[in-house]
């Protein structure tokens, strides 16, 4: 097996390594792209071992080097419309961010209609069918950013940990805008206009009490592209290693070249492989408290027996799987608001559920239930049993 580790690459063996690359490249007219990352003795980007393709071999694997010279003509050039349709990412410098605007007030209206059932009042988070939906704010972002050094250990064992939410933790608002438009609302993504996305972004900035260019994002605030590009979040510089600018790859390589930066132990960097008497006499054994977390689905078992036969169709279970993501907080099972929908007759309610509605109800909740099964779930939702 041929391998090189980071230490070898950065040590006096650099000349020998370069020689091997020269052999590896001799089959093609141009240098293989794989060599670029590691020539001139650069460390690997993750601090790990590099297995170059040498003499038709990478690590233990044989490689058909004749297949690696390019010359393939598959596919076609995408049209500009196709690229525009898919190239929707928004970068911190504003690349990809369209023109548009939206107010905090409009954002709040949208939030109340499409987001509050999962993210809770004022973005405080809410419990769902499984675990909790994320909070979008944990209070004033500038104050909460100061909690990043909180550790729930020692004297603060039962105290507060770091309050990680959009305003206090995220480095960039471009991430929020992009994610709202591509990944939200959760059951019906990619359905918000640019202006609606600006409005929701403005609302989330406001509940985090963000100040843009000296101006607090209050109820009257209208966010547009120009103002957006002036946003600076309090934790922008809370991340390592540096990943911005032309020198970023080298900064990342340097970071991972030092095991201490990421809590690792490396025997080539002074760590010790202790074999005898490696602990103080005072160490303690920490046990799982009680049964610990053990609400496993299915329950833990290693028994080898015949599975229980499946029972009849269970609308409550189908509700949990297909509907509860939205309906836990809105028209929940047995909720009195159902009275406002059943007035036009149960068949109308069935039809809306089966076909979906413009109000955001996906057809059959996105499930693959049969019509008969789905109607049983609707009955369950209305009656709550």
């Amino acid at each position, binding site marked *: 097996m041929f391998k090189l580790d980071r230490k070898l690459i950065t040590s006096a063996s650099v000349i020998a390594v370069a020689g091997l690359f020269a052999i590896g490249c001799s089959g093609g007219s141009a240098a293989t792209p794989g060599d670029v990352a590691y020539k001139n003795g650069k460390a690997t980007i*993750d601090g790990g071992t590099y297995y170059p393709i040498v003499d038709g071999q990478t690590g233990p694997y044989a490689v058909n080097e004749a297949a690696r010279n390019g010359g393939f003509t598959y596919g076609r050039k995408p049209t500009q419309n*196709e690229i525009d349709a898919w190239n929707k990412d928004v970068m911190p410098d504003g690349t990809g961010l369209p023109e548009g605007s939206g107010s905090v007030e409009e954002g709040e209206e949208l939030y109340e209609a499409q987001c509050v059932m999962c993210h809770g009042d004022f973005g405080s988070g809410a419990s769902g069918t499984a675990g909790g939906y994320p909070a979008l704010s944990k209070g004033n972002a500038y104050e909460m950013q100061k909690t990043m050094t909180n550790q729930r250990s020692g004297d603060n064992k039962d105290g507060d940990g770091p309050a990680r939410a959009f305003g206090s933790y995220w480095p960039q608002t471009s*991430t929020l805008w992009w994610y709202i438009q591509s990944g939200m609302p959760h059951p019906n993504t990619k359905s918000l206009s640019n202006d609606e996305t600006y409005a929701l972004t403005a609302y989330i900035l406001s509940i985090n009490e963000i100040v843009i260019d000296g101006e607090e994002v209050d109820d009257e605030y209208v966010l547009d592209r120009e103002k957006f590009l002036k946003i600076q979040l309090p934790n922008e510089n809370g991340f390592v290693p540096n990943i911005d600018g032309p020198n970023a790859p080298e900064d990342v390589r340097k970071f991972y070249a030092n095991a201490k930066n990421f809590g690792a132990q490396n025997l080539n960097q002074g760590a010790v492989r202790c074999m005898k008497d490696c602990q103080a006499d005072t160490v303690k054994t920490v046990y799982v408290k009680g049964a610990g977390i053990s609400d496993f689905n299915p329950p833990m078992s290693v028994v080898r027996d*015949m599975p229980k036969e499946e029972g009849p169709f269970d609308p409550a279970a189908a509700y949990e799987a297909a509907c509860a993501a939205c309906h836990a907080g809105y028209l929940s099972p047995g909720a009195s608001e159902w009275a406002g929908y059943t007035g036009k007759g149960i068949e109308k309610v069935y039809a809306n559920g089966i076909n979906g509605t413009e109000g955001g109800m996906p057809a059959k909740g996105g499930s693959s239930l049969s019509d008969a099964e789905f109607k049983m779930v609707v009955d369950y939702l209305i009656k709550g049993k």
Partner: protein
Amino acid sequence: MNKVQENSTENTVSDRRAFFKKTAAISTVAAAAVVAPQNLLASEDDHAIMHHPAWAQKLGDPVTANLYGMPSKYEHNNTRRNTPLLASGNWQASIAVTPIHESCGIITPNGLFFSRCHGGTAQIDPNEFRLMIHGELERDIVLTYDQLRRYPSVTRTHFIECPANGGQEWRATQFNSVQFAKGFMASAEWTGVYIKDILKDLGLKKETALWMLAEGSDNSEMGRTIPIDKVLDDAMLVWGQNGEALRPEQGYPVRLLVPGWEGNLCVKWLKRLEFASEPFYCKEETAKYTALRKDGKAIQHFYANEVNSTVTSPSPEKPWTDLKDGDLIEIEGLAWSGMGTITGVDFSFDGGRNYVPAQLKGLVLPKSWTRWSIMHTYKKGQVLQLTSRAMDDAGYIQPTVDQEVGQLGVEGVYHRNAVETWEVTKDGKVNHVQIRS
């Protein structure tokens, strides 16, 4: 075990006389089952040997019965599992973890491969699959599924691990289970194409193409930024998983594979690769998958899963309650590193105070699960604390719990790889513990 016998009786007994004969046998087994469920009585003829079960006399299933084969029904407890703690509001933003206590060798069956998604498992029509590759290239390209599969294929065995594997236990152990403490990972033989082989014809602009966005086509359109070094080393676009097409839970029809790195970077249901001079600041590399250190700085772009190991047998799921004094037993486990090849595993019977070398077994591959074991003579009533500690060829060795917490604090969530300890109680049960100062 009593239950096993009863159920298998229902399944195989065909006449009333046989039923009574069998019930008599069961009651003897049941009495003995409390202590040693899998062992046979020394003094009596074993019913399982002394009668012809139904499967030995009746015709079995025709070859037409399972055109796509399924596991034995008796294996129904060998499944992925989930828990509400590991869900962000619903089961579409959640994880189902692999039963590594039942895993054999270094390959996970496709149906048991851990499954993580942010907007549910997308069910993609491969006829509508398109892969767009664009950005800092001389030539942008769009490919169909069939066209992508025309590229020369590469097959590699690699684990994929969620960097939150073990991440619930920075402050203390919480899961008395190896499936949940260490099962946010699985391993497969992947088939696909090196991205660098596709790029040869697309004219990558070396000065400005420093990062690659990989974006999924699922509900959440999950995306991540990959540095160009990895793209030009061993990153692959894969369509094959253990000899068949990817499973939907693993990104059918095509996912990114960045060997050894965070599972989250191996973007599933892939639709787009974009090359750029600056990173993309995707949600899953800012809000999540960043590891907050005690100095208040979070590690971003934390790529490789570091060297790690665990004992799989015994484990809380696979205790030693049936062992007799003096039994010779193999202690077995997994070691893995996303930063290289496993070079050795040290083993401790006293929670990491003293170590002896364990033995590696089978194939030892880069960025792959590696099996190891050590033989042990069981002494009834003896309390043990079993700890494994792996090393890789990049020089990394697993830290102690104290070392890792000392450097990083307890709030990082991701990339915890301190040594794991199982305590074997005097009656052979196994509990998950940590040894801390």
